[in-house]
């Protein structure tokens, strides 16, 4: 970095273990968060907010959730889309059944509903490991989507089978539904992801996070030193699904406006997994970077030929997009298998020593 940490001595465990041990980092992150709340709603146009920033924030939340489970606790899951669907559908049911309930409470409660389902589908993880578990979580994915498709009660018997976000307000400002401005929805999404990212950061540096990492690195050894696999793994599934559930509710209420089960299909699970792996397993920062990368890349690729002045058929462009997308994933995995977070760390180290690397 441009700044150095010289002269900042850590004299207590608390200061050594702080989330941001360096003063400049603290100031910078705080300033960035404040700026994120203030600047884009004033400056950015509706396209930027709606097409880029809001999905980025929502997917960052989902990626943090999956990273807790896969990156920290080491349980590979392909059921993210299903858990997000649970969040979305329970938010819809809750807010239509209790219209006076605050939408914030609705989001949190639907997160809890997703957590309960996550716990249920996490139970096999006690016996099944690795890729066997990954395929087993696909059972959750397919079963949940089928359930939401089949049982009309979940959509309040809508003939179209879609759920639609109604108008709901926070402090007098409409934040969901067709009448909400993009700026209001953006601030709402940002508030959620900022709080939950902080919670996640604190979770993973505390006792719970350490027991997750112990299970991830060698579960038998962890069990022998007294980490309870049952509690630890289920807690990981529960908390991860909570995050995914809130993200799923946000996806419908703050981004799409209305959705059917197709919005939560298996591709959604892979998308979030991509973010986690490209960003960096076991890194909260990585979840942000991964979400930004995966959200921005397709937008960039779609606009690229236009920007270069090339004209091609839609089908051909889609095929080339797919190839570049796949190729870039391969490229990043080969260059740095530990993800963008590691690249960022390496860059930081290099800059710290610059211009005298020895």
């Amino acid at each position, binding site marked *: 970095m441009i700044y150095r940490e010289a002269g900042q001595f850590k004299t207590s465990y608390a200061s050594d273990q702080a989330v941001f041990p360096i003063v400049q980092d603290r100031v910078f992150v705080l300033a960035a968060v404040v700026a994120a709340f203030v600047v884009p709603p004033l400056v950015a146009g509706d396209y930027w907010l709606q097409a880029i920033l809001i999905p980025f924030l929502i997917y960052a939340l989902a990626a943090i959730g999956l990273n807790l489970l896969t990156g920290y606790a080491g349980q590979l899951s392909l059921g993210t889309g299903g858990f997000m669907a649970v969040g979305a559908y329970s938010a819809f049911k809750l807010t239509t059944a209790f219209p006076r309930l605050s939408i914030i409470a609705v989001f949190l409660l639907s997160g809890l509903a997703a957590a309960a389902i996550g716990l249920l589908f996490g139970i*096999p993880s006690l*016996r099944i490991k690795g890729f*066997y578990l990954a395929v087993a979580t696909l059972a959750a994915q*397919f079963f949940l989507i089928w359930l939401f498709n089949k049982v009309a009660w979940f959509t309040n018997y809508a003939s179209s089978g879609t759920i639609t976000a109604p108008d709901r307000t926070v402090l007098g400002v409409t934040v969901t539904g067709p009448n909400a401005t993009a700026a209001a929805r953006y601030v709402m999404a940002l508030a959620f992801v900022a709080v939950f990212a902080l919670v996640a950061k604190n979770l993973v540096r505390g006792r719970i996070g350490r027991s997750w990492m112990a299970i991830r690195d060698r579960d038998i*050894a962890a069990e022998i030193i007294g980490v309870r696999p049952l509690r630890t793994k289920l807690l990981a599934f529960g908390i991860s699904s909570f995050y995914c559930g809130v993200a799923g509710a946000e996806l419908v209420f703050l981004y799409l406006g209305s959705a059917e089960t197709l919005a939560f299909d298996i591709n959604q699970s892979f998308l979030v997994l991509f973010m986690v792996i490209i960003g960096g397993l076991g890194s909260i920062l990585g979840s942000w970077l991964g979400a930004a990368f995966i959200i921005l890349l397709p937008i960039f690729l779609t606009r690229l030929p236009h920007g270069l002045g090339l004209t091609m058929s839609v*089908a051909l462009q889609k095929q080339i997009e*797919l190839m570049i997308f*796949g190729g870039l*994933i*391969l490229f990043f995995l080969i260059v740095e298998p530990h993800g963008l977070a590691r690249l960022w760390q390496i860059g930081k180290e290099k800059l710290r020593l610059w211009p005298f690397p020895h």
Partner: protein
Amino acid sequence: MSDLLYMVLVAPFKDMAGSPAFLVEVLIGGVFAGLMYSLVALGFVLIYKASGVFNFAQGVMVLFAALTLVGLLERGAPVVVALALTAAVMVGLAYAIERVVLRPLVNQPQIILFMATIGLNFFLEGFGEMAWGANVKKLDIGIPDRSFIVRGVQINELELTAAVTAAVLVTLLALFFQTTRIGLALRAVADDHEAALSIGIPLKTIWVVVWSVAGVVAIVAGLMWGAKSGVQFSLSLIALKALPVLILGGFESVPGAIVGGLIIGVGEKLGEVYWGPLVGGAIENWFAYVLALAFLLVRPQGLFGEKIIERV
């Protein structure tokens, strides 16, 4: 409540006993469907055995092989030439994958390699469609899709051919693994990469060989599935159908892929026909997964997977 129990536990079996010919038909349909799944699952198993890579791109490899084959046939190549050329393309693909993807990622955790194969999945999907076009194609290999009746039971000729092909393929593979020098080397690599390297087995060659064999298996699977339902993008989704087969049989076991396929195929058909109507149908998407999950709870490594020995 007792009504419900009756509908779940008694009525389906009464239906089965009521018309045995229909039951046999359902069972045969299940066996054939299962063998079709096995054909895809085999490709997964081969690669996982030899390189520990969970190759998600196998489904797209099937699609790619089928697309190449159809493309060549459309341009007027005789069947034998087209098959040989497709095989050559798949071997070339295996070589390229080894060189570009696997070699730089050697010794990385399995999940990274898994992710890389998903990247490969996207790339091949785009590439295959760009090279051969995205419209639905018909693959005609001269086996009519018609049925004949033996003792009141309908049998589909195409499915029968697929079943026989699968059986022949598995026998050939088993012979290849058990009797040839390369097969021996493959088994050694599957056991332990480092030990195999240290006694002079060229890992790179082995990987190319095993991805080529998986490519050839993909051609056969592509032939059969393509003849059945046309060559189109949805062909790559059969990978998702093969996954429950895979975990049920065990990732490392060739016989497991066959037996797993049969269990999933028969279970799926029985569930669909006799229990499906109870819950409103369309259960084929998840039923196989739940079935496999139930088996896994009893045997976490699949039916024929290697026993997991855990130590600190």
